[in-house]
């Protein structure tokens, strides 16, 4: 049987025993602003794609093909609320989606700026790494689940468990958010201009939630935090980027942070460490 290329590259010869590699920055590193191997696209090179007759896989492959041809601006027409569209784009790109998306739209992206004219289903921007997504209407549940980075914006209302398990990035909700938003949040920022449902920030380990409206109630270990001048400056700047504002001013938003009572690493980690050593 032919061995996988990773064996030929010697990736399986190293004896793994704890920390086996150390990486250092090289001051002589050449300056690149995009990932090696990414497509060289031009934002001024624009095209349209009719997604009507295509299924999700065909749409995603077509987007990739267009990027490989240097198109930096793509208008996707007739998405038809299909699931799993515009996922895994690891490139700089301006993508305009003229319609609504189904489940898991725009997941796992790293770099593109996406604007969606319609609504989105569950888990839009799931595991997003970088870039921006703007949804002009409403979004379903688990909006930005496990978000790692970038800005995920919904100008309307969103469902429950927004930003569940988010590990970075910024989620902005122009309207209301449902119950258990920020559940098990580990870092990043969530900004809700309207009201927040029950159990906001339940079991959050870290990160920050700013709410402009009413909070139904807080979850376990979510506590009010102190709004700083830096928070206010950051909020003003960020909301302006997306043409949003809160009726009472960002200074009067409620800031929620983790109470850090769930941090039990000191009980667990030493035993793990001993096992490793």
């Amino acid at each position, binding site marked *: 049987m032919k061995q996988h290329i990773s064996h030929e590259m010697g990736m399986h010869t190293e004896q793994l025993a704890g920390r086996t590699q150390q*990486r250092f920055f090289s*001051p002589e*590193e050449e300056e690149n602003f995009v990932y090696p*191997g990414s497509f060289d696209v031009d934002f001024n090179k624009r095209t349209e794609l009719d997604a009507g007759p295509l299924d999700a896989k065909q749409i995603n492959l077509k987007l990739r093909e267009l990027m490989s041809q240097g198109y930096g601006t793509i208008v996707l027409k007739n998405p038809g609320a299909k699931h799993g569209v515009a996922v895994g784009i690891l490139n700089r790109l301006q993508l305009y989606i003229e319609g609504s998306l189904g489940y898991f739209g725009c997941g796992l992206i790293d770099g593109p700026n996406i604007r969606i004219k319609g609504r989105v289903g569950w888990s839009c921007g799931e595991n997003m790494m970088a870039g921006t997504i703007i949804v002009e209407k409403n979004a379903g549940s688990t909006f930005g689940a496990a978000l790692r980075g970038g800005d995920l914006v919904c100008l309307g209302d969103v469902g429950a468990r927004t930003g569940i398990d988010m590990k970075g990035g910024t989620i902005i909700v122009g309207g209301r958010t449902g119950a258990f938003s920020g559940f098990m949040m580990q870092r990043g920022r969530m900004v809700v201009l309207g009201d927040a449902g029950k159990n906001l920030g339940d079991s959050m380990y870290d990160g920050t939630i700013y709410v402009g409206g009413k909070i139904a109630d807080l979850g*376990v270990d979510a506590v*009010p935090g*102190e709004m700083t001048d830096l928070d206010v400056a950051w909020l003003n700047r960020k909301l302006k980027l997306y043409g949003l504002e809160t009726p009472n001013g960002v200074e009067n938003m409620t800031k929620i942070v983790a109470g850090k009572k769930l941090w039990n690493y*000191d009980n667990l*980690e030493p035993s793990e460490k001993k096992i490793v050593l």
Partner: protein
Amino acid sequence: MATTGKAAPTQPKSLESVKDIDHFIKTEGLDTAREKEIGQHIGYRYDVNLVPDYSRLTPFLKTYMETMGWDDLNWLEDVHLGYEEGRAAVFDRNINGWVTVPENMKLPDNQQDRDMLARELLIKFQMSKRHPMVDLRKAYKKF
């Protein structure tokens, strides 16, 4: 609004007592009795909730933002300069590990400028052809 506790400060508890910016370079960061007992620092060695001060943006980062078509630091807002084993380092999520800052590099005297430096170094490393992801991509890419 129902609340369940008193207001929490911006700084995490583990960093409240840290006054010296070089605390985690000069010491092992074992400050509390529990940390001394278990022999390791508890929590992060930087404030993960610290938002960037945009007046301190570097020219390199401005060019990066422009290249990507972003009006702000985007995902880099979550990147801070941390400290690993007494060395300044940045966590690279793509390799799930710390990347150490060259020892001879002079660090700024405040966390905001240090964070900007960390962001700059991380971009240079991630976009480099010698980044470990380049080999992984060669080995495992599907299309």
